[in-house]
């Protein structure tokens, strides 16, 4: 039938564009970087260095995944950095307190600490979600506000002085521990990423997040309950940020209000966007976000290994970041044409 033909060739072109558009060439770029570094500097593929990279990438990836979810729903979460800090100090404080109250009862101590930390995430997430979904204030502004507020609370609790007194086991056998040769953070990150991929692809929640980000009005008339899912995305994002805060705390061995901060926030969004998440909403996959988190981490590591003057490093970072995305865009357009 005629339509078979009609459908045929446009689909051909679109198929190609799809590949370019959906996967991008980030993985390729990553491989290039890794290959290049390995060639230039044997230190790079030293086991310890790889573990460092993986651990730091994991921390970033966890935050970035949450961030990505929010952005896909058409929002923005500037508060993640502050949540990381708050979760860290609250976790540490709580552990210290419970440790004082119930000496020796390590399980209780750790459980309470972690619960408290994640609790912070839930609270901030709910506040963000409420303001965005119910009060209809743009996510950017809301989280700009909660960022300031959350950071303030974190500092109020600690005056910026590190919080000590958490059980050694928490640090030794969780924060700095390794299983199957990989740091805990990496395992946690892998679990998070797998869960998120599953959520995005296979669950109602993920589907509705895409729908809301793609076209709110259509979602409404199709009977999707918008508010619940928007709140959901912000809660997930904050909780993941809190999780990162806890991991950092366990690794460093003290609760610090200096964790996270603006840099973590900016990095998480950068990771998401470089990973192909559209700030217009409706588009983006966490596995690519995780990859771009890895990319950014390796980039920083490479600049250090290559002994680049640390004052000049930002310049390189900025140029490469822009170049990468620009190239991606260029290729995407090319494929779009032929």
């Amino acid at each position, binding site marked *: 039938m*005629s339509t078979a033909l009609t459908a045929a060739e446009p689909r051909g072109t679109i198929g190609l564009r799809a590949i370019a558009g959906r996967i991008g060439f980030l993985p390729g770029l990553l491989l290039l970087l890794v290959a290049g570094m390995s060639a230039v500097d044997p230190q790079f593929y030293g086991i310890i260095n790889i573990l460092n990279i993986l651990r730091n990438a994991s921390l970033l990836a966890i935050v970035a995944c949450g961030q990505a979810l929010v952005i896909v729903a058409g929002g923005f979460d500037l508060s993640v950095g502050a949540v990381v800090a708050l979760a860290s100090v609250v976790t540490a404080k709580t552990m210290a307190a419970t440790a004082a109250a119930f000496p020796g009862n390590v399980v209780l101590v750790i459980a309470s600490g972690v619960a408290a930390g994640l609790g912070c995430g839930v609270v901030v997430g709910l506040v963000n979600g409420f303001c965005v979904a119910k009060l209809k204030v743009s996510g950017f502004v809301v989280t700009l506000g909660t960022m300031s507020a959350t950071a303030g609370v974190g500092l109020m609790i600690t005056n910026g002085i590190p919080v000590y007194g958490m059980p050694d086991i928490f640090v030794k056998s969780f924060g700095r521990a390794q299983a199957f040769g990989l740091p805990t953070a990496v395992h946690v990150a892998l679990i998070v990423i797998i869960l998120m991929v599953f959520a995005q692809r296979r669950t109602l929640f993920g589907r509705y997040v895409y729908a809301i980000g793609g076209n709110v009005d259509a979602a409404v008339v199709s009977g999707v309950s918008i508010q619940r899912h928007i709140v959901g995305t912000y809660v997930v994002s904050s909780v993941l940020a809190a999780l990162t805060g806890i991991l950092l705390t366990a690794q460093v061995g003290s609760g610090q209000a200096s964790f996270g901060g603006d840099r973590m926030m900016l990095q998480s969004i950068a990771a998401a966007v470089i990973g192909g998440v559209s700030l217009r909403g*409706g588009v983006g996959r966490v596995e690519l976000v995780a990859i771009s988190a890895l990319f950014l981490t390796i980039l920083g590591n490479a600049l250090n290994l290559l002994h680049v003057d640390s004052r000049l490093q930002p310049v390189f970072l900025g140029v490469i970041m822009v170049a990468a995305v620009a190239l991606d865009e260029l290729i995407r357009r090319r494929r779009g044409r032929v």
Partner: protein
Amino acid sequence: MDVDVAPKPAEPLLQLRGISKHFTGVQALDRIDLGVRAGELHVLFGENGAGKSTLINVVSGTFPPDEGSFHFEGEEIRHLTPQRARAIGISPVFQEFSLVPSLTVEENLFLGREITTGGVLRAREMRKRAQALIDELGFDLDPSRRVDDLSRAHQQMAEIAKALLGKVRLLILDEPTASLTERETGRLFELIARLKSRGVGLIYVSHRMREIRTLADRVTVLRDGRHVRTLDAASSTDGELVELMTGRKIDLLYPTITHKPGKVIVDVENLTLADGSVRDVNFYGRAGEITGIAGLVGCGKSELIRAIYGIEPATSGAIRIDGAPYEFPAARRSLKRGIAYFPANRTAEGLALSRPIRENASMTVLDLPAFARFGVLRQAAERAKIGGIMAQLQLRPPNIERAAGALSGGNRQKVMLARALTRELTVFLFDEPSVGIDVGAKLEVYEFMKSLVEAGAAVIVVSSELPEALALSNRLYVMHHGRIVAELTGADRTEQNVLSSFFRDHLTAEVA
């Protein structure tokens, strides 16, 4: 779609009494009564902005009415939500589609009604049912395509399929044929017949008299949000309907245009587009005549004129304007050369909805000294000029400082047409000029084109509405699969020939 057999046809399926709806600034609906029987097709007829879509939105639970009662299958319904509406079998096909561009057709079909076990999607099952439905409807639609890769026509099919997924008791169609071509329209009508025979009630909105004639059992005429009258389609004439609708007499014939073909203004040679939607096309348009382009969905007719205007990349071929070669076309330069393009999708490509009408109309002339000197706007002049033009086009309401978004479809199109009068132009490219505008407005648009050609301009019209294309054009090109398969002039310009030119093509396609 599953449809349970007709209930007692006595009482109406849907019964609205005294429905009102107020929007900021407008009384969109004012004490409307409406009854739809099972198995009948009930047409809503009215000018742009009469309140048809609003009424439909109320019926399908998008927003609640301010007052009035709502009965469905005999029982009173309160606090209707979209979910509830679909659950009880009210499924709307919206004028502004309810599709998520970044999702696939199939994902859109099930949006809000996914098949899940404990929050986990059952993709395979949904895929199967989506395919089954599309096959049953006989649309050529690929369920795995992303909606934003589809043409408006294919999006329309997806929107219809979406409405027919699941239990259907009352099907609502808001201008479903606006961007469908004859073939899909035919399919749709067969489908409607089947549904009626199975006792499904239909509400149908259209501005095309032909459809109303062929489909309608009863017609309800709305004007300014008020219910004017409900009458039997059989016992009422077109003129009657239109008079009720507009409150004045209008004769519904296409204007008789006297074409005086002059020299070739637009000349296209072996044009091929980057996305392959148009392949080595040769055609020309002359001053003083309307050149029509007709064709099935996705045949690339829009792309062709968009390429001439310079918003679709071409890979090979030559375009000549008034004899002079026109390389690397671009919107800006096209306008300078006197070429104007009027997009089919006015919300996406035409208007900045939240900006005032004045700014929207003068958008294309900010480079002219009459409107700006040394980059400084001459707002007084602008206000005067645009005001005059909009008055001449009879903008309703006549205030040019309102946001363009506050206008109804027909008036939005008028804002677009105003651009044709703001600067010296010789070539006018219209893409689906009458999509979604009411009969009155349509005639005004046709009159407008008439005046253009008779003033010696070269007008090129792309239309999916075959009668329109035939009636307006002096020469009619027929496109198929990105190629021009026929050029019809004079007496050969008949629906027969247009359609047969497709079939000829099919045969060759089969042979090859």
